[in-house]
């Protein structure tokens, strides 16, 4: 079976062929080289033996990409089989422009809102302060523009990625 794997930052995906040899054992061919992979899911990681080398590999999903941690290096890879890639190509890509939502970078508390609705702001100007673990983080405006919405009142507890302020 053929997969396409595009490493984040690379221009083009790599073609990778995979064949299952037995439960948990695979032959994987990349750039003309055939590798034997034995993969066993373990608590905390997947134990992989790749051509006899032992790795604890950890995976974390980020949208289309999966972040792969091997020996202290994280690589983000968009990997899918050919059929799925065609499906995905059908869905139009779009970019958010104009309206920008500033989100909480971590769970914590919105300790201070530094702007008012209608206020003109400059790129890099402080908009609000979120505190977690006794660290205050000033959220800055991503662009020159105007504050159009304050979505969360000062003093609230906020979740990771909570929408806080809209700048247009």
């Amino acid at each position: 079976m053929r997969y396409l794997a595009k490493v984040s930052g690379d221009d083009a995906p790599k073609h990778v062929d995979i064949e299952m040899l037995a439960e948990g054992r695979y032959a994987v061919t990349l750039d003309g080289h055939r590798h034997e992979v034995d993969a066993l899911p373990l608590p905390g990681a997947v134990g992989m033996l790749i051509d006899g080398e032992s790795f604890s590999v950890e995976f974390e999903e980020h949208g289309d990409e999966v972040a792969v941690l091997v020996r202290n290096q994280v690589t983000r890879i968009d990997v899918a089989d050919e059929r799925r890639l065609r499906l995905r190509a059908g869905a139009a890509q779009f970019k958010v422009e104009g309206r920008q939502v500033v989100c909480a970078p971590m769970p914590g508390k919105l300790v201070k809102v530094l702007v008012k609705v209608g206020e003109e702001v400059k790129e890099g100007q402080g908009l609000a302060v979120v505190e977690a673990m006794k660290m205050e983080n000033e959220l800055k405006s991503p662009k020159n523009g105007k504050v159009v919405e304050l979505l969360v009142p000062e003093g609230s507890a906020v979740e990771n990625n909570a929408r806080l302020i809209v700048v247009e």
Partner: protein
Amino acid sequence: MGKIRKILVANRGEIAIRVMRTCKELGISTVAVFSEADRSALHVRQADQAYCVGPAPSRESYLAQDRILEAAKKSGADAIHPGYGFLSENASFVRACDKAGLTFIGPPASAMDAMGEKTRARSHMIKAGVPVVPGTAEPIPSLEEARAYAEKIGFPIMLKAAGGGGGKGMRRVESLQDVDSAWRGAKSEAMSSFGNDAVYIEKYLDQPHHVEIQVFADTHGHVVHLNERECSAQRRHQKVVEETPSPILTPELRAAMGEVAVKAARSVGYVGAGTVEFLVDVHRHFYFLEMNTRLQVEHPVTEWVTGLDLVHWQIKVAEGEPIPFLDPVSPRGHSIEARIYAEDPSRGFLPSPGKIDFIRVPGGPNVRDDGGVYPGYTVPSHYDPMISKLSVWAPTRREAIARMKRALSEYMVKGITTNIRYLLAIMDAPEFVQGDYDTGFLGRSHQALLGAPDPRLRELAVLASVVYRHQQDRARATRLQAPRANATPSRWRRFPGRPRP
């Protein structure tokens, strides 16, 4: 002062556990206090008794003196160990303990008065002839005056909390336009950390080393030092890696600094464990920075090379015993500590509270873990991001670095982001390996510490990702064919890191 039977530990996290461990070894009962956010915290499980002292914010719980004293009374504790941070350097709390008939395990209020307020300490030291870093003698009353004084001595300057240390309420300010935001941040952090928002200004010394001397004093007039700790590996004035001996200290410099530290402690009638912090400049001149009138986070490295249990001796001194280690203790071997933080170095050290799905702590020879968490525990967002301190010992510095690398490579924490890979990168950084690194080291090396990708590991990651995705696709296909298999999670989906919310 007599035999202590039950100690209330007015703290949380790893240091509460640390103190309770020694109590247990001494046959002393322990009482935990906890905020509503900490009901499931490890220190509550570790203690013999535990009392809730209020809601999550520290000011309403871990800094609420009356509630802590009430818990002490209810539990029948006869002494209080403050740990570090929170009330540990609060002289009014010491007085309140005295009044309530409780032994405060730490220096007398008078010594804390003299040393606890950083500006007063500076005046004291100047009188005692100890060199100090140039700066204001008093807390700065207003933002305007801060701007004026800063312009006078010239940037960069340091804004520092008068009420406590540990990097809290501290900001380096590069230019006039940054004073406002630094002032706001420092004061607010100082308030939430120490219940005191006074800040003062010091000249920022260029590329200094942060070297501190551990002192110990008893109630019989003995004051000794237990050598130094090198703490220059800091990011945002927060120590990250500490070691002893300091690779830059000569025996002469060690003796001179030790002597000054003992003099400083003696001049304020110090009792118990304390730390005198110095900056050492490129000419190896040293300046008094401040005295931390409590147990230091990084005390394990001193314990490794001296064989002493500092908490043990804090308690014995509080019971009135004389310290037996009066001769200079010559350190044995080398020790390094690395602080494990729940934070993401690649995103500006953003805190990463959350649930710990899996944890494996390193073990084997001469590795020590002082942790405050357990598998399944949710690290709350209200407190310090340090989840553990990993320390190692070896006969030489080179071996200690190798051991620390080995131990860090075994440390697995899943569910939250930690700085473990960043710590590994520090151990490999040429400046660190060479041993002459100043407080600017981590800032300068930031990009290098985040690491350049190794092409071989990238290739392995590609292979692994394809196997992973293939397994997922197979599992999905199986589920579509047999909808009732839904209940059984597939082989793959059970374990890999859950997607970030």
